[in-house]
C-alpha cells in the first residue's frame, strides 16, 4: 500500500481539530487510512493518501472536515474541459465505467 502514493502536498483535505468530537466516523469511512485517533480527537496522519472521495466530510456531523471532492480521473478532466463543466465520471447507461 505504501508504494501506492500519489502526488505529495496536493490533497485539498482540511481538518479543524477544534471541532472534532472524537466520534471516529472519519476513520470508519476513509478507504485509505488517512486518519487515526490521537487521544479523544482524530488526527490526519496520511494526507498524501487522500483521494478526495469526500466520505469523511460528508459523514462528519461536527463539520470538522472539508475537502474539494472529485474524481481523480484524467479523461473526466479532459471531458469536463471540453464540455466546460466539472469533471465527472462518464460511467452510466451503457458507458464503460471507471
Amino acid at each position, binding site marked *: 500500500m505504501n508504494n*501506492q502514493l*500519489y502526488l505529495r502536498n*496536493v490533497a485539498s483535505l482540511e481538518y479543524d481539530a477544534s471541532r472534532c468530537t472524537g466520534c471516529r466516523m472519519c476513520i*470508519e469511512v476513509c478507504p485509505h487510512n488517512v486518519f487515526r485517533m490521537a487521544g479523544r480527537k482524530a488526527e490526519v496522519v496520511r494526507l498524501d493518501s487522500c483521494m*478526495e472521495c469526500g466520505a469523511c466530510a460528508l459523514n462528519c456531523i461536527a463539520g470538522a472536515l472539508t475537502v*474539494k471532492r472529485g474524481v*481523480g*480521473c484524467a479523461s473526466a478532466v479532459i471531458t469536463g474541459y471540453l464540455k466546460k463543466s466539472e469533471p465527472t465520471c462518464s460511467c*452510466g447507461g451503457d458507458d464503460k465505467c471507471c
Partner: protein
Amino acid sequence: MDYSGLSIIRPPGVDSIWSLRDYLGALRVKSSIGRGRYRVNPGLYRLGQPDKDSEVIITSNYKLSFDLVRKSLDGMNTWILVLETYGINVWCAAGKGTFGTDEVIRQVKESRLSQYVSHRRLILPQLGASGVSAHGVKEATGFSVKFGPVRADDIKEYISSGYSKNDVTRSVQFNLMDRFILTPVEIVNSIRYLLAIIIFFFLLSGIYAGGYSVSLIWKEGIRAGLYLLAAYLSGAFLGPLLLPYLPFRQFGGKGMVAGFVVFGLIGIMSLRSMPYLALAGWFLLSGGVSSFLTMNFTGASTYTSLSGVRREMRVFVPVQILLVLTGLSLVVIAKFV
C-alpha cells in the same frame, strides 16, 4: 417470518448460490459487454429466512455487486435492500450521488423496512460513504447507518465480530490482479482512436521525397501500425500493470517511461533497417502516446485525487503534445533526407 395479518408483502427471495447464468453474466460484464444493462430491480430481498432481528445489507443494483453480496452471505439469513443506481457499482454510484443519502431514505421508506425489522440498523458498504451521510439517514428514517467493510467477502466477519473492522478490511487495495482485470477496460475504451491513428499513419506512409507511393503504404504502413500498437499496449497495458515499479509518481511519467523502454527495445532491433532520424521520431512518439494512455488509467486506479490529476496534467499534457509533435516531425523529415 409470518406475514399473515401484516400489511406488508413477502419480498422476493434469493439464495447465495450462483447459477451458470450468473457466472456467464459476471464474465461478460467484466469484459465490458453490456455492463450498464446488467441490473436487478431495486427494493427489498430475502436471503434465506430473515426475521425481525436479521441484518439489513444495502447494495447497488448493478447485478454483479448484488450477486457478490448474496454469494458472500452464504449460510446467513439477512435482508438485502437494493438501491437504484442505474446499474452502476457502489463506489462509482456514490461518487455520482445515485448511491446517496436520498436514495437510501427513499428505499427504506418505500420498502416499509421498519415493519420487517424491529432493530434500526443498516449495514452499508464502506465505499458508499462518499455518497451517503449516516447522520442524514438517521435523521430522516431513524435507522443508524453502519459502514461495513470495503469488500463483500468481509461482511460475515464484520457482523460476527460485532461490527468491527481493521486497517485491511477498511482500505481499498489495488494489487496486480486488480490492475490486470482493469486493463481490458482501458484497452477497449480507446481502441477506436488507435484504429483512426493507424489509418492516418498508413496514409502518411505513402509520402516520400519523390511524391506519393501506394506500395510504400503497405511497406511502411504496416511497420508504423505495429509501432503504434506497441506504444498503445505499453501505455494501456504495461504501464497500468507495472504501476508501482515504474519511476515517477505521475501516471503520465510512468507511461512515458514504459513507452520509451518498449520502443527502445524495438529500435535496437531496427537500427539497420531504419534511418536514425525516423527511429528517434518513433521513440518520442511512443513515449508521448504511452504517457497519455497511462495517464488515463488514473480513472481506473483507486488512489488518485482530482487535485493530483489536475496537477499532473498541467505538466504531462504539454509534454505529451511536445513528444508527439516532435516525433511526428522527425518521422516526416526522415522521409526527405
